[in-house]
């Protein structure tokens, strides 16, 4: 009885349509057209390949290799966070050879062993049809590409319609079926929109409340200073940014801004980050600053000059900013680029209103700060900033080294009272507290100082050791940077440069150049990868190993496969011709081999019939050799075949006279 719901063969053109859709989404349309074309011309091509199980296993091995190569492509790709997506996206290419072998083989099905190695050992008879499986894979591969949601929805609905219409039961009326289908589409459309809204709300909530768990990059809410730490501060020489700017004047790039100081830690009371509308990357427009940022994670705080707005990043990156101006990027690559088109110190982005917390001096420091403040006669005016700067310049020096301190003393108090030396965090924190004592709202800023100019590439190189801290003061209704760290800090940091720095810089530059080239030449990753893939596969295919039983090509005895077919068939035909000569001789003796009768059984009957007249032991040897050549996979060598031929001809020569004699005797016996 026909089972109408069996998914034997997908409806016509379903796979091709899905493949084309996949190609269009993945920007591999030419490949997809080619793949679909090869599948569809099956209708006009009459020849089929004779592939046995081993042939399919070899195609399966080839697919495994393709899978390994795709993993390598994905692992070394530029977006590690999307590995699974990329792998799924490449899966139609991985499974395509198997589908092709099913389409163009005369069996029309694939043994399960082609997929699962365990089934090869068991010699399982289970066979499958790959069509619908490939259809599902292609659909999933299409869905992992970020594209226009509505376009994707329409295409998927069309594909579902095509697939389900084919299996529609004849007892269901078309109107009812269409009604249900329309209902499903409508609910799905509103359902997926609700899902997006829910997911975005959840993402916003999660970003807010779980941001403390973000690791690696600077924490936008909390900055623990190294004040009071013993020994010399050492920072890495790794290049973290490249800053392209028209002039060569060093600049400060702020990453995070904090306003509360407690126990050597700066906190930000502004926890709310709002998703920021940003421009999409446009290579025709010239930005004021272009920054190439390296990050270990897929999120990073953006280092920006004060008053930056009008940002542009790749469209898959999400930007969010808090009230203080700390800007965060999510879903970045390991190297990503962002452009700043406008920098205005009095822009509305720079008009974060000071809060009472911007004037708070922590209790342990109130005494010392008020002493210095009254000594300097600080008041809430523009001159105060200059006075504070002068105070630090005259009395304080820069040092990366900190000695052991008495537990009860606060590092910043010692910095004020006795030591008068320290690194940027001391100067920045001290500046903030002094400005606040004068009634000027001030905040603590961390970021980078771009000082090292690369003349060749005409850009600033920013290393991890260029990390810096300074203060921001609110004067004349705008925030300004106040950096009181003595300028020798940069030379002191540079003294720590590693011996291998030129080498690591060279690799870093190479990587940076490759990224630029890739972007400007418009070659997408996949095209490059597919070229690499084809070259690697060709190299592997040209390398035969395991003798005749190659993994991908080569023949094995009695196993007909794509490449070894002709040669192998010839061999087995030759052996069979020789065997037929023996059987014909037996027939002349009156002992015909029955269908399905084992050769050795036939030999025994022949032996009985001829009463040991013929050389039975030799015939037995010949038959054993025949079995070896026929069934042992690696026995069909040239030498063995030659030996077989010699034995057969010797035996036949020996037997023909006896046959003649036997026939004569029979004639005589016959009355």
């Amino acid at each position, binding site marked *: *009885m*026909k*089972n*109408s*719901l*069996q*998914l034997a063969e997908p409806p016509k053109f379903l796979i091709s349509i899905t493949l084309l859709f996949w190609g269009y989404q993945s920007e591999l349309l030419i490949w997809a057209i080619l793949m679909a074309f090869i599948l569809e011309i099956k209708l006009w091509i009459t020849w089929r390949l004779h592939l046995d199980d081993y042939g399919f296993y070899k195609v399966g091995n080839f697919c495994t290799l393709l899978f390994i190569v795709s993993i390598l492509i994905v692992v070394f790709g530029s977006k590690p966070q*999307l590995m*699974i*997506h990329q792998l*799924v996206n490449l899966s139609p290419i991985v499974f395509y050879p198997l589908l092709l072998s099913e389409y163009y083989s005369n069996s029309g099905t694939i043994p399960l062993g082609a997929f699962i190695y365990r089934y090869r050992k068991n010699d399982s008879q289970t066979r499958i049809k790959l069509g*619908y499986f490939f*259809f*599902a894979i292609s*659909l*999933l591969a*299409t*869905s*992992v*590409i*970020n*594209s226009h*949601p509505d376009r*994707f*929805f329409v295409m*998927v*609905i069309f594909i*579902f319609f095509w*697939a*389900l219409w084919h*299996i*529609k*039961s004849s*007892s*269901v009326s078309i109107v*009812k*079926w269409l009604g*249900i*289908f329309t*209902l*499903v589409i409508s*609910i*799905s459309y509103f*359902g*997926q929109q609700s*899902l*997006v809204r829910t*997911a*975005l709300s959840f993402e916003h909530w999660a970003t807010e409340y779980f941001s403390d768990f973000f690791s690696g990059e600077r924490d936008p809410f909390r900055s623990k200073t190294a004040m009071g730490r013993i020994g010399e501060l050492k920072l890495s020489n790794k290049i973290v940014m490249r800053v392209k700017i028209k002039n060569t004047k060093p600049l400060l790039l702020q990453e995070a801004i904090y306003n509360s100081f407690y126990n050597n830690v700066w906190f930000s009371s502004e926890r709310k980050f709002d998703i920021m509308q940003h421009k999409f990357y446009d290579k025709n427009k010239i930005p004021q600053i272009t920054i190439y940022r390296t990050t270990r994670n897929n999120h990073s705080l953006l280092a920006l000059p004060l008053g930056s707005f009008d940002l542009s990043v790749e469209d*898959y990156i*999400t930007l969010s900013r808090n009230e203080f101006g700390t800007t965060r990027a999510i*879903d970045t690559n390991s190297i990503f680029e962002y452009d700043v088109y406008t920098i205005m110190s009095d822009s509305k982005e720079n008009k974060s209103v000071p809060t009472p917390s911007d004037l708070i001096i922590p209790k342990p420091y109130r005494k010392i700060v008020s002493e210095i403040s009254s000594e300097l006669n600080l008041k809430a005016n523009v001159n105060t900033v200059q006075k504070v700067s002068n105070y630090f310049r005259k009395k304080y020096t820069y040092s990366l080294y900190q000695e052991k301190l008495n537990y009860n003393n606060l590092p910043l108090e010692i910095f004020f009272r006795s030591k008068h030396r320290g690194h940027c965090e001391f100067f920045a924190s001290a500046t903030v507290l002094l400005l606040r004592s004068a009634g000027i709202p001030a905040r603590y800023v961390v970021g980078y100082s771009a000082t090292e100019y690369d003349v060749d590439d005409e850009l600033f190189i920013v290393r991890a050791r260029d990390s810096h801290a300074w203060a921001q003061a609110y004067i004349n209704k705008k925030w300004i940077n106040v950096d009181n760290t003595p300028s020798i800090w940069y030379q002191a940091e540079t003294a720590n440069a590693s011996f291998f720095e030129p080498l690591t810089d060279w690799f870093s530059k190479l990587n940076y150049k490759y990224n630029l080239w890739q972007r400007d030449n418009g070659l997408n990753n996949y095209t490059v990868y597919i070229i690499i893939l084809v070259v690697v596969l060709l190299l592997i295919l040209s390398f035969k190993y395991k003798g005749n039983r190659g993994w991908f090509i080569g023949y094995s005895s009695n196993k007909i496969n794509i490449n070894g077919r002709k040669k192998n068939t010839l061999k087995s035909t030759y052996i069979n011709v020789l065997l037929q000569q023996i059987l014909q001789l037996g027939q002349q003796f009156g002992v015909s081999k029955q269908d399905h009768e*084992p050769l*050795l*059984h036939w030999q025994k009957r022949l032996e009985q019939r001829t009463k040991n007249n013929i050389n039975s032991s030799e015939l037995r040897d010949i038959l054993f050799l025949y079995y070896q050549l026929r069934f042992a996979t690696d026995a069909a060598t040239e030498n063995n075949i030659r030996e077989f031929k010699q034995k057969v001809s010797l035996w036949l020569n020996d037997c023909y006279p006896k046959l003649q004699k036997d026939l004569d005797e029979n004639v005589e016996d016959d009355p």
Partner: protein
Amino acid sequence: LRKLLDNYLWRSYRQISAISFWLRRRFTPAGKLVLIVLFTSALIGIDIREAQSYQLFTITLIFSVIAIISSIKKQGNFLVTRRLPKYGCVGEAVSYQLTIRNNSTKKIGRLAVFDILADPRPSREIFFVAQEPKSVSSNLFDRFFRFPRWKWLTETNTIANTSITDIPELLPNEQLNISLTLFPVRRGIVQFKTLEILQHDKIGLYRATKKIPCYDSLVILPKRYQLPLLQLPGKRQHNPGGVSNASLVGDAQEFVSLREYRPGDNIRRIHWNSWAKTNTPVVKQYQEEYFSRYGLILDTFCGNEKTEEFEEAVSLAASFVYSLYSLESFIDLMFVTNKAYQLSTGRGVTQREHLLEVLASVTKSDNKNFIKLSAKITENLTTLSGAIFIFIKWDEKRQQLLQLLRCNNIPFQGFLIQSDDPLTNNIQDLDNNIAILQVGKIESGLAEL
């Protein structure tokens, strides 16, 4: 701790099997494909910014939900009758008939039927103590999680498989005969429990079910091999008491005379009337009954081990029962399960099909019961013309058994079934009359004899 873990594993595997059985019946192949896409897109589509998989997830989810909802409605009223053949055989599809009648007043379409057989999942106790073959659980992981054991036990308990078959639309009060197919994979008795009538939804993804109890059973006979032409040794033997048999397969029985009782005579043969008249015991004397009687001795002593060998031994025994059946001789099948059995087949006695039926249900026995087999053979030494032994082990006890036959001049032919390559097995003092056959290559082994 191991017991606790085993208990947990058993429960889990049981539940997973139940879910997979449910999915197999409830979702059409298209529905299963939709489910696969649903779960995969849920996994890869968490990030809605990076991919459109969430759309695929929503569409497949809505399709599944609508399909399930639309199939929730009251099923029709059906009357079903199943007509089974007498026997089935391992490896050969069995076709049987099903009559289904729509007793409702509505036309019902989109129907399919599925025969639910006895639950093959092993019981907790069996799962705990069973010993799967070493080849099944080859590594530490398998032995720890015992999934191969579960799979092996389930497969062992599965005698046959059935499939879902679509049936045409049924008009009110219409009766339909349909042909269903059963795929026997193992000898034994297939228990039919419930017939499930499935109706898929309008889209064709999900099936609603209606269960109709419909008990039946079918004997699946063991697999049989083609045997070579075996010249069984032996001659006709005196078979006293086999009068009725001799009339059919040997010389005709004739009452000859009365004679005096001699010690050893069967007291059943005493002619009481003559004793009363003469006052000395007199017995009836018959013309001697002669016919051939061959013993077919099946080795069942393997405890929990050697399942494959045992199955092959049963198949070989079935092949002999089937092939050696003739009008001129009897075959006495002897084996031990919990007690010793001797069953004869030949013209006038049990038909060979009945013996095959017995072989379909024969089970393994404990090693300590071997003595029962020896006793049974000793009992029949005087009547046997020859014997065929099917061993699954070779040891001293079996050697002694053959020695016994040899001492009594009873010719025999033996077969030893081995799972591994015979060359690698260290078999010592193997009798010349014993041929080694390898599991999975029995037919080719027989052909070489």
